[in-house]
C-alpha cells in the first residue's frame, strides 16, 4: 500500500511550528517511514503541491497570497489541519487587527522611532495585506487543530498518529490549572480581597515564588482561561501563561472569559495596575474572538 501523502505550508507565521516538527528528533524518522512528504517549505521548493491526504497549515491568513495558497491547498487535500496558534486563532500577527491597516503600516514602516524617511512598501511583487488577519477556518473548512506557540513535539506526535490512522485529533478539555504544578494557598477559601499588595509585573522574577499560583501572587496569568495540553512548560520555568493554547472549549472567547475570572481573583488594587488588558487577554486569539478587529476597519473593506 502506498504511504499517505503529507504536505505542509506556512502562511503568516514565524515558522516556529515547522521547527517544532523538526524537534520531533528521532520520532521524525518513524514519521518519515509512514508518510511521503510532498511539500514542506523548509525542505522542498515546490510551488504547487500535488493532491495529498493530509495538509498541515502554519500561520494566519493576513495577505491575498495567504488566502490563495490556502484555498488551493484545501482543494488538493483530504484532511487539512491548522498547525499552531496562528492558524488556529490568528496568533501574534492578529494583534494588528486592533488598528486600521493604514495606521498599522504607517507605524511599522514610517513611524518607528529608529526610522528616518521611511516609505510604505508599494511594489506589485509584494503580496498585498488584507484589512485584517483571520484564522484559517474563517477562509476554508478545517478538519483538525493543533494549537500551541509552538505545539510541543509531544502534541505533534500525538496529532500525527491520529491523522495517519484516520482518527480525530482529541485534546483534553480542561483549563491549564489542571496541568499546572503550582500550589494554591489563598484560593482554598472564600475571601473577597486576598491579594492586598504586590506585583503585576513579570520582571521581578526573583520575587515570585516558583511553587505558588501566579494569580495568588498578583501576577497576571492566562492559564485559568487557557486550554490545557502544553504541559504547563512556561509555568515550570516560572513564567506565567500567556494563553497560546487558546480558549477553553466552551468559552465564546479567551479574553473576556479571562476578564470574568481575574476580576474576581485579583483585588481592585492589582487590577488597576493592569494597563494592557487587551494585550494580556488577546495576545494569541484576537482574530478568533467575538469582536475580532477594531470598529471602523470594516468600512475600508
Amino acid at each position, binding site marked *: 500500500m502506498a504511504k499517505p501523502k503529507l504536505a505542509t505550508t506556512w502562511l503568516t507565521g514565524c515558522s516556529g511550528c515547522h521547527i517544532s516538527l523538526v524537534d520531533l528528533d528521532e520520532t521524525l524518522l518513524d514519521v518519515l517511514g509512514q508518510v511521503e512528504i510532498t511539500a514542506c517549505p523548509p525542505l522542498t521548493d515546490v510551488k504547487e503541491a500535488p493532491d495529498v491526504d493530509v495538509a498541515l497549515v502554519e500561520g494566519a491568513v493576513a495577505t491575498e497570497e495567504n488566502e490563495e495558497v490556502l484555498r488551493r491547498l484545501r482543494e488538493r487535500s483530504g484532511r487539512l489541519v491548522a498547525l499552531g496558534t496562528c492558524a488556529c486563532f490568528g496568533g501574534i500577527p492578529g494583534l494588528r487587527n486592533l488598528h486600521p491597516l493604514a495606521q498599522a503600516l504607517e507605524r511599522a514602516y514610517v513611524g518607528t522611532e529608529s526610522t528616518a524617511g521611511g516609505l510604505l512598501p508599494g511594489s506589485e511583487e509584494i503580496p498585498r495585506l488584507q484589512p485584517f488577519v483571520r484564522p484559517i477556518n474563517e477562509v476554508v473548512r478545517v478538519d483538525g487543530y493543533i494549537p500551541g506557540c509552538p505545539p510541543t513535539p509531544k502534541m505533534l506526535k500525538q496529532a500525527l498518529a491520529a491523522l495517519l490512522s484516520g482518527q480525530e485529533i482529541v485534546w483534553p478539555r480542561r483549563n491549564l*490549572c489542571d496541568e499546572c504544578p503550582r500550589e494554591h494557598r489563598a484560593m*482554598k477559601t472564600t475571601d473577597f480581597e486576598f491579594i492586598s499588595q504586590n506585583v503585576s509585573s513579570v520582571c521581578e522574577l526573583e520575587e515570585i515564588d516558583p511553587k505558588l499560583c501566579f494569580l495568588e501572587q498578583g501576577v497576571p496569568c492566562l492559564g485559568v482561561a487557557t486550554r490545557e495540553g502544553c504541559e504547563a512548560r512556561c509555568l515550570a520555568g516560572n513564567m506565567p501563561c500567556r494563553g497560546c493554547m487558546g480558549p*477553553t472549549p466552551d468559552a*465564546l472567547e479567551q479574553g473576556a472569559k479571562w476578564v470574568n475570572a481575574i476580576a474576581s481573583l485579583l483585588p481592585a488594587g492589582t487590577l488597576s495596575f493592569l494597563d494592557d488588558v487587551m494585550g494580556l487577554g488577546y495576545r494569541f486569539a484576537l482574530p478568533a474572538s467575538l469582536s475580532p478587529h477594531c470598529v*471602523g476597519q470594516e468600512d475600508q473593506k
Partner: protein
Amino acid sequence: MRRIALFFASSACRAGEPIDVERLALAFEGSVDAVRVYEDFFDSSTLVEMTALVRERRIAAVILAGRSPDHYQATLGGDHVTAELIRAGVNPNLIIHANLAEHCSLPHAGTSADLLFGKAKALTDVAVLDARLRSPAEIVEVPPRRRALVIGAGAAAVVAAYRLVDLGVRVVVASSASGWNLNGAEREHLAPSVSVLERHELCTLAFATQIRGVTGWAGDYETTLAHAGATRRERLGGIIVAVGEEYESYAALWPLLQIDSDREGRPYSRNTHTLSVRSTTSGVAVVPPPRGNGEEPLRQQSADATAAVLEITDLLNKPWLAHCVAVSRVDASHCGLCRTCIKVCAFSACSIDEHAGTSRVDERLCKACGNCVVACPAGARDLITGPTAQITGAISLLARAKLGDEPHVLALLCAGCAYRAADTAAREGHTYPVSVLPLRVQCGGRVDMQHVLQAFESGFDGVVIGTCREGKCHNIVGHLYLDRRVVLLRDLLRERGIDPDRLQIMDISPHEGELCARTLAEFAGELSGAISGAT
C-alpha cells in the same frame, strides 16, 4: 423534542398600549406544540383548560406570556397558576414567563402597533428559546420542620413568638439585645404574652445572641447562633424578622438574609399591595416597623406580626414543600481545579472534591446567582435557571428584533433588583423607548463580559446592565464583581474602537421605578444623539 405550550393572556397584552395578541399567537403557530390565547390565566375555566391541555398533549414546558413573573409568584395566591401547572406534570424550571405587560404594553404608551408587535414577538421568541434550552430542575420534597426562629426583642417579636407557641410551633427568639426591648405602653399591654413566653416549653429565649449563619431553604433552614463565645445550631422551618426600627440590624443580617430596604433602611415587602410581610426569600417573613402615621403603633405591630406568623405557619403546616434545586451545575470533564469558584462564591458553596478531581456545589448553600458560572474560566459550570446558551441565543434573537430606527439597547436586568425596578416603572406609568430590550439575568454577577461583547458585535447600539445598589446585592458580591469586570471590559471596548460610554451600569433598587425609566430613556437619548452626531 420537548413539547412546548405557549399561553397568552390577552388582558396583560392590553394593560397599557394594546399588543395585537391574535397576530402574535399566529406568528408562533407551528413553531411550538400548542398556542392558546386566554383572557387571563386566573380565570378558573382557563386554568382547567390549560392543565387539561398540558396533561393530554404531554406538554413538558409552558410559556406564560402575560404579566411579570412577580405577578405569578409574589401576589396573594398568585402562585396557584404555577402550582396547578406543576401538579399537571410541568417541571417548575420549565415554566417560563414572557413579560408582555410590564416590559412591552405598559411602558410604551403611544408606540406604533408594529413596533410594539416587534418587541412582543422578540420577548416571546426569547421565552420559546428558554423553554427549549433549560433543563428540568431536581425537586426535593421537604417535610417542613415545625420550628421557627424569631429575630428581635421588641413588641413585634413578642407577638410573633406568642402566636407561634399558641399554634403549637416551637420557637427560638434570638436577639443581640440583653433582654426584652419594650417601651412603657408595650410592657403594660404585652405583659401577659411575655409571661407566657418566659415559661412556655415550646419557647427558647436566646438574648445577647448573634446570628452567624443561615443555610438551607424554606421548611429546612439551619441557623448558627452565637452566645458568650459558644455557638449552637438550630434547624427550623421558617424565620420571622421582627427587629422593628433597628435599621442597622437589617444591614447586619444582610449577608445571611437579604431583606430589601429603601434608602433610609426601612424594609419593604416583595409585594406591598397584598403581602406586607413577604420577603424575597421563601420561608422568611419580615414585620415592617410601625409606619408612624399617628395610628396606634402597637396595634399595627401586632397585626403585622400576626400576618408574618400566618405567612410562616402556612408553609409549616403543609405536609411537604417542593424545593427546586436550581443550583449551578458542574461538568467535571471541564474542571481544571483552578479554585476560581471557591474564591468568588459569597456563600462558600463551592469546594474541591480532591478524590473525584472536580469542584462541587453544596446545594444547601448555593443561591444559584451564577457568579461562579461567569467566573469559571474553564466553562465547567452552568446555571439551571438561566443557561449560558440561553443568554447567548437570546441576545442574538433580540438583536434581530425589528424596532425602527431608534438606538437598540440591550438591558440586562438582575432578577434581584433591576428587573423588579423595571416592573415598578411600568406599573407606575413611566415610559421609555420601545427599542430598549430587556433580558432577565439572575444577578449582576451573572453578566458575562463575553455576552456584552457579543451584544455590541451583533448590532446593539448600547448595553445597560441593571444591578443592585451598593450593599444591596441579593448575592452579596454580584454587583462588586460586575463593576470590576466592567472596568476591565471598558478597556477592551476602547481598544477595539467601541465607545465605552455605550455601556452603562444602572444600579437601582426595586422601588425606584421612576429612576429606572428615566435612566433607560436618557441612555437611549444619549445614544441617539451620538449616532446622529457621528453621521
